[in-house]
């Protein structure tokens, strides 16, 4: 059997399904529900077995069209930086507020992807976010939490 990344993903899915199945059996149902034809754990148990079945098939059966990914040509660095910026954005958005964090997120993402024209970076971050906030908050009446703007007295 030829081991490739698809098989490894399938093996991980098999392990995940086994864990899911184990967790499904651990679901505590009401005592009067225990012997009914269907309770809160019935469907998850079937799903767990289905996961084991399909991932098991994928592991066992020979691969007809092997997917070859050229890892040398993949841009891991920029992708990882973008993901990291998004995580920082997620971590700060509630505490700092929508306007500042979103503007900084956009500006740093543009920069991380190679943009060096500061005027465009600025225009497509701070004024853009302000206009978007006006659209959401002012026009569509969608609430946006922003402690920073509240502190400045810009937003109620």
């Amino acid at each position, binding site marked *: 059997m030829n081991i490739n990344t698809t098989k490894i993903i399938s093996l991980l899915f098999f392990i995940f399904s086994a864990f899911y199945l184990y967790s499904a059996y651990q*679901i505590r149902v009401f005592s009067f529900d225990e012997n009914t*034809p269907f309770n809160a754990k019935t469907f998850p148990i079937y799903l767990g077995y289905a996961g084991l079945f399909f991932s098991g098939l994928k592991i066992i059966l020979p691969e*007809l069209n092997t997917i070859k*990914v050229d890892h040398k040509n993949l841009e891991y660095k920029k992708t990882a930086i973008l993901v990291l910026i998004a995580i920082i954005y997620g971590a700060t958005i509630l505490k700092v507020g929508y306007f500042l964090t979103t503007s900084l997120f956009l500006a740093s993402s543009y920069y991380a992807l190679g943009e060096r024209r500061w005027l465009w970076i600025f225009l497509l971050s701070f004024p853009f976010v302000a206009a978007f906030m006006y659209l*959401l908050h002012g026009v569509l009446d969608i609430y946006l939490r922003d402690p920073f703007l509240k502190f400045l007295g810009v937003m109620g």
Partner: protein
Amino acid sequence: MIEGILIGLKTALTFQNIFMVMIGCFFGTIIGMLPGLGPMTAIALMIPITYGFDPATGLILMAGVYYGAVFGGSTSSILLNAPGVPGTVATSFDGYPMAQQGKAGKALAIAAWSSFAGGTLASIYLLFLAPSLSKVSLSFRSPDYFALMILGLTAIAAFSSKGQFIKAMMMVVLGLMLASVGQDSLSDITRFTFNNMNLTDGISFVLVVMATFAMSEALTIILKRNDPTEVAKKVSLTELGSIKINKEERTKMLKTIPRSSIIGFLIGVLPGAGATIASFLSYGMERNFVSDEEKKKFGKGSVHGLAAPETANNAACSGAFVPLLTLGIPGSGTTAVMLGALLGFGIQPGPRLYITNPEIFWSVIMSMYIGMVILLILNLPLIPYIARILAVPKNYLIPLILFFSITGIYVMSFNNFDIYLMIGIAVVATFMRLYDFPMPPLILAFVLGGLMEENLRRSLLISNGSWEFLWERTLTACILATTILIVLWHIYKTIVKK
């Protein structure tokens, strides 16, 4: 029905709703033109905005985006041989050669008119078929619904996976597993939350759609060093040529459009099939319908060859609404996203939608037609300019997609956990995309998960735990037999290919 049409027209023809169709078509065209970003991404990005409107307006906006994206995909197929969406691959077979002969404007016009005619005819079919099917589907019982969902999931796995059926079925199971997180709908018992309060209400549908489509597509573009905006940079404003269609070409289109619209609509109605299969099938069938002389022109800029897939893919888009509106079961990934959005509005599509919310049912049908008119009037002359807007570098495009995705989740939950979860799912989805694990089956399964469990619960309780309900009713047995046929056909195809 006349009363319904009038209700629909009254709702669809308000200033706000016409404006929404215009915005939807315009935005959808832009996203659809970008290779790699399809209608599902466009609709996903729109969901948080739709929650600011009433359900009819929200759905009208999403339907506009859907049509716009399919039309946008045709444009990049014709101008650059780079289909924006899989449903427009067949368009490039004759559209691109036509553009190379200096007749890009004409090719765009043929595509636009064919899309318009296909969509219009399909809206008429939908108009007559949907109410009748709604009445028929009132006789459906839980076992039938359960079997239908199995059929839908199997079909989408078989058709969307390009020979990777098992991978697609794994994604189906993963989607159902994700849907099972949170409180059980009947007993309120929490499942798979691991004592995390943020998971008690389950994983948000918008979160999963944003993560698996918008965000992961954006990350994939960066990871693979693709630049979808390259397409737009190559479009010349001056070299498109005339958009006038002569009498001979019109005659050819008049022959092709009716038959392709029927093929497209019927394929669209089938669960899992959709615009891609419809366009390929109608292209192939059109080749058999025309004379030998015309047959030779296929692949070299044939009017029939361009009009057929364009008519069929738009007709299939309308057809895909039939199972959604009448049974409450989406037949494709895109309509699954719409179902999720409707459930978010507190509306359950299905046979009773036609009775309980006629304004939604009819206004969506009417807005499809209005969307077609808008695509024709606005988008056709504006295509070269829209293409120039797309020349926004990817350095800006990708952060903006990420921004819309994260904002969408933020305004819905004001919760850091959801943002982390979305990023986590997006990273896993990006990695799985590299190895051709399809995402539409996951979305369809995620949306149907709750309904499927509910119908299985009812069926098993009624039959006292016996699985005989699967073959007790003729209808249930027929649906399951179709499912088995699809699986067998797929296995046969795989063996033949081997």
